[in-house]
């Protein structure tokens, strides 16, 4: 019997595939189907503190626009009973998800203020989240803010959140650190129980005809996995935290590679959007088949087996490898 269970954030998961934060996880039906398809856990879409603020402002400006200006029309829109501008809708999603599925439900949070991180993390725990993923997604545009200041802020957030909740806390990172291992170590020391590599950023596109910048979302490809594998392999064994791959996991091979690099779990969204939620079952079957073919007994057996620490040629993960790639390219 092949054992595909894994441990992540102190939680025993029945499979290493976790549904990453996405609109797919907004639907209880989808969560049930994910559970049926075999995911080990699901991360709910992020609660964005900034979005709550923006929505609050939008509701206010929509209701206020033109009000009390003209005797015949003192308001232009009806004032509804509720606008769900607070976190209640999200907390309700956690509660409904917990009732609907037995796999761990991980809440995801993106705050804008320290008080926001703490307030919403505590509320998520109260609502029943099994763990909280801190989505440290931010675009730093201020040239006066240094990387060390940002890293310090991140550590502060992690440390404070950890001291305010008892459930495990994962930290989702961007790849844009000068020294990823150092940042990862500090975050782990600040209390992060897991590091999720890496966030995918919406990349604004340029419309040459309209001379405008337009937001766009593209689904990931397996190509993107390589960056994640690279850093998971480097970090494995050097940080206390669990590691998770997110971004570019589409196939059974991708899952296997992630495990071998050192990840506890491999997270999927794009593949599910592309192939449907049932794709999880297909991938897991493929994983098992591969493991059978190659006589692996368990996922745990392979985790970290090809990390930098365990790889036969660790310099493959270092600069030497880069030079080799370049020269081989030149030869062609």
């Amino acid at each position: 019997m092949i054992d595909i269970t894994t441990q992540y954030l102190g939680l025993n998961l029945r499979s290493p595939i976790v549904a990453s934060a996405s609109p797919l996880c907004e639907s209880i039906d989808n969560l049930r189907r994910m559970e049926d398809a075999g995911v080990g856990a699901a991360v709910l879409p992020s609660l964005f503190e900034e979005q709550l603020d923006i929505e609050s402002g939008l509701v206010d400006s929509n209701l206020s626009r033109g009000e009390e200006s003209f005797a015949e029309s003192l308001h232009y829109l009806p004032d509804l009973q509720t606008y769900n501008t607070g976190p209640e809708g999200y907390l309700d999603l956690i509660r409904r998800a917990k009732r609907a599925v037995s796999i761990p439900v991980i809440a995801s949070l993106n705050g804008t203020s320290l008080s926001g991180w703490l307030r919403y993390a505590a509320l998520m725990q109260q609502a029943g989240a099994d763990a909280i993923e801190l989505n440290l997604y931010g675009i730093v545009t201020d040239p006066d803010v240094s990387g060390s200041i940002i890293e310090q802020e991140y550590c502060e957030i992690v440390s404070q959140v950890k001291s305010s909740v008892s459930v495990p806390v994962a930290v989702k990172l961007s790849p844009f650190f000068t020294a990823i291992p150092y940042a990862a170590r500090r975050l782990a020391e600040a209390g992060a129980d897991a590091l999720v590599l890496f966030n995918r950023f919406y990349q604004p596109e340029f419309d040459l005809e309209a001379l405008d910048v337009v937001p766009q979302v593209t689904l990931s490809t397996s190509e993107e996995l390589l960056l994640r594998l690279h850093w998971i392999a480097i970090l494995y064994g050097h940080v206390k935290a669990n590691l998770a791959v997110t971004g570019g996991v589409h196939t059974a091979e991708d899952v296997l590679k992630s495990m071998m690099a050192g990840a506890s779990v491999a997270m999927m969204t794009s593949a599910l959007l592309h192939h449907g939620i049932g794709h999880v079952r297909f991938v897991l079957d493929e994983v098992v088949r591969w493991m059978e073919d190659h006589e692996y007994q368990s996922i745990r057996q392979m985790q970290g087996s090809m990390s930098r620490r365990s790889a036969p040629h660790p310099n493959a993960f270092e600069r030497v490898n880069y030079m080799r790639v370049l020269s081989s390219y030149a030869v062609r």
Partner: protein
Amino acid sequence: MTNRTAILDGNEATASVAYRLNEVIAIYPITPSSPMGEWADQWAAEGRKNIWGVVPTVIEMQSEGGAAGALHGAIQGGSLGTTFTASQGLLLMIPNMYKIAGELTPAVIHVAARTIATHALSIFGDHSDVMGTRATGFAMLASNSVQEAADFALIAQAASLESRIPFLHFFDGFRTSHEENKIIMLSDDDIRALIDEKHVLRHREHAMSPDHPVLRGTAQNPDVFFQARESINPYYLACPTIVQDVMDRFAARTGRRYRLFQYAGAPDAERVIIIMGSGAGAVEETVEHLARAGEKVGLLKVRLYRPFAADAFLAALPKSVTSVAVLDRTKEPGSLGEPLYLDVLTALNESSAAAPRPRVIGGRYGLSSKEFTPAMVKGIFDELKQPAPKNHFTVGILDDVTHTSLSYDPEFSTEDPQTVRALFYGLGSDGTVGANKNSIKIIGQDTDNYAQGYFVYDSKKAGSVTVSHLRFGPNPIRSSYLISRASFVACHQFQFLDRIDVLTAAQPGATFLLNAPFGPGEIWNHLPRKMQQTIIEKRLKFYVIDAYSVARDAGMGTRINTVMQTCFFAISGVLPRDQAIEAIKKAIRDTYGKRGEAVVQKNFAAVDSAIAHLHPVAVPSQVSSGFDMLPPVPLQAPAFVRDVLGTIIAGRGDDLPVSAMPVDGTFPTGTAKWEKRNIAQEIPVWDEDLCIQCGKCVLVCPHAVIRAKVYDSSKLSGAPATFKSAKPRWREFETLRYTLQVSPEDCTGCTLCVEICPAKSKSDVKHKAINMLPQAPLREPESANWDFFSALPEFSRERLSHSQVKDTQLLEPLFEFSGACSGCGETPYLKLLTQLFGDRLLIANATGCSSIYGGNLPTTPYTTNAAGRGPTWSNSLFEDNAEFGLGMRLAADKRADYARELLHRLAGHLGDSLVSGLLVSAQATEKDIQAQRERVEELKKKLANVPSPEARDLLALADALVKKSVWLVGGDGWAYDIGFGGLDHVLGSGMNVNVLVLDTEVYSNTGGQMSKATPRGAVAKFAMGGKHAAKKDLAMEAISYGSVYVARVAMGGSDTHTVKAFLEAEAYDGPSLIIAYSHCIAHGYDMAFGLEQQKAAVNCGYWPLIRYNPDLRLTGKNPFQLDSKPPKIPLKQYAYQEGRYTMLVRSNPEAAKELLVLAQNDVDRQWRVYENRAAMPGHAETPEPAPAEAESVVKTAPENGDAE
């Protein structure tokens, strides 16, 4: 019994009772009663139950006539039903009112009494509407205050159920309907205690039911109708006693005692005023004041006006009375007197009492909410002392024509010295009124004080000035008039000081709070001389705060309401400062809490930082300013504009005498240009090097403040130094110059022009050919540039291609500077209409936004060209606009017919060539029309020398020989709902009228109520849960005639298509209908993006661009043309940019999701239908193949052998 107090207005007070007492509520929006229906709809949406434990059904109908019909049916069906209305709406209910009363069916109609439109529409209050219903058989009960509005809503219904006579419960529009006051609420138990279940049961048993079938509503004949009509007499005889019984039971329960005719004043009064409605408040205050001084005066309040209980009336009038003034808030021209006066005379005349009858005079007051003050009341009492008092008088105006008006001492005041009186001048957009409503609630609820708030708005929708009148104090406040002596005055907008004398009402020693961008040390020299003088003379305590910077720092943008409210409490000392701040924050949480924590927190931040920025100003002893207030209009304006309209603009319209007013409601056009409002903080500035001269900014500007001209370069001599010009980007005009000019003082700063501008800098793409810059430093130079530009000659219309957008935007607009909302989506269409056909345009305008910004005084946006020609415009009603416009067409055609007939008759005098030229010209092109105008001028010259009556007739009619363009303009409320029957008939008439429907998809003017044009899934008033039904396809309904030109246009979707549709509609010799997508403030987003949303509406297939041109059938083509491309984006991508959709997503995500699916289905289905229709071969539209097709049929039919 509970004594729970609340601060609310008369509409809410009434609705709160009516809602709890009824099961079916049929509604239709009309000012000032709309909020009653809105409250009912909101409570039903929230699931609130009536006293029988069910949620009333609230249904919006297509008109008040429809609402009355539905009410009639509901109460015949055994339900308890009600409706709310006013003014024209009540008139539309009259036929049903006769029926309901004739059938003795209990029900109450609650009316916020409002002026009936005569020489002009007025949204304000008087009794002309309710008096128009006094013959219907409805009982009529008048409440005089907010408290009474709640109480009488209950008393009316209880009495109606018992008496079986339907009641009209009314109170004064705005003065009571919109006045906020502290009242004692009626609990459910209070209501239950007054309603006798056996009468309810009787009503239910009387219901139409097949289980005990009856027939009601027979047709009767001369033999019995009369007797049957008299059979109801006992019910009317019993009614007053029933009402008094109910009032007595009400008093026993609540302690508030009412009489059918309620007397107040000296028991031995000799002079008495008889009145009903809110004016009784001012009279009662005056009576108490005078009686305290020993004057023998009194007041008789008429509460139950119909049935008029003469006995009760006579019993209530003190026997000591020797002279009586009866006041009517209505006018019946030609009558011997107004209704209440005649009733009083009749009652006295029919009295059998032996005592000598008092002398009775009647007078009119308060029409259209004209102020009615204690000073006027004193004037009436003084008149009653005269040996021969003036009868049929007016009070409150100066009638220098027929000299009806009474004089009075305006300085007389009865204001309670213990009452604090505060005045606040603000802008609609700065939140002043909302904050003051909160302040009243704080004072009324957190203290033992009584509180009253009344709010005055101006007639503009953009940059409108609001004046809040707040009273609070230890004694009940009955003062039903504006504050003219204020102990506190706040001016929330520094720019008002130039034009509004905000300190007129400040009493000596009052406090003055000013929001200004200057600190306490520098403010003095920025005040006009008059203001400095007033501050010194009245010894005002003067405070200043830069509220905008405080608000900005707190993240509040331009909402300074919280900052100014905090300052008011801090200075006025109404509450201890800490307690006040706590109360303000509580009010903020109550008001904004559900909008989200972020909004609450930024308001808190504004409160916390306000007081630190509030500074007392040391007032110098000398006036030192180097400038004074500006005149309301420039001195060079025409006399009527300067003397009459200017006086209105300055807020002194009350001072205008009768002789100043046109007798028949006719006003000159072209007056808006004199009212410089300077409401934009930023204005567009042209970059002539970057501009591609596409004209889009000119096209979309809602206020016609951006204009383009092409002119000879020689005209540039004498141009101001900063005047810009460029080489025209027309090959044929390259030797000339082109200028794009902005009128800085008329711009509202909406930025639509910037958003639409397609020309971007190649090195800095955010810089466009038009960019916003602060107005203040540009005001002077750009005004000079605008004046210079305006004086440049207009470009020749004949040299332009009217089907090219770029060219049309060189045509002079004859609609400018209206009071429409900043960024309005309707006005660009109207402006285009005037550019294309303005000098021969007749407009019939349905009541609504377009009639308000088109025709609300003081100034009018329709204007004339250099030849003095321009649109002529009229508004009849809301419901009849199609018929009204058709009448205009008939008249224009008839005048032209007769003129042509006269041409034939006078041909001998005029010459055949001229006559035939005049008769045969098709006037299809601009050039033809110009030629016809020239022929008409020649005709006039010749006619001047023909001495015959027919020649004089023809001279008077000669202009009718130039083709006229008749347009019926209105919103979707008119076209889809209330006016649909008439519109349908007119479209079916075949007459050459053009209909322009400015489709905002809601009743915009009354505040965004659902119409049948509202799309599925959007939230609107009366559709709080999102509209469930799909939007009506008015275009397809019209197309079904086959003989109507129909277009659906969206300027943001395709401006070329829009222009083409306007030209084709006008050219089509038959009825035309253009349905124009008009973005609106009620859609819930920043209207700067209005055209972007229009484009999205087209791109997602929600608003397909179509033209249906029956003329195409003549050439065998399919008349149905689908001009937009198949949907490129999902509906969601368009809809979810708008608050009207996303509010539901936030409020009820599940419902929103379901409705979105259905709405997307609507779009898909509509697209398929349109696509199929557009793909039909032309011959499918005609019974006989058209010539072109007949040919093709022949060519393609050889195989059956019949081709030969």
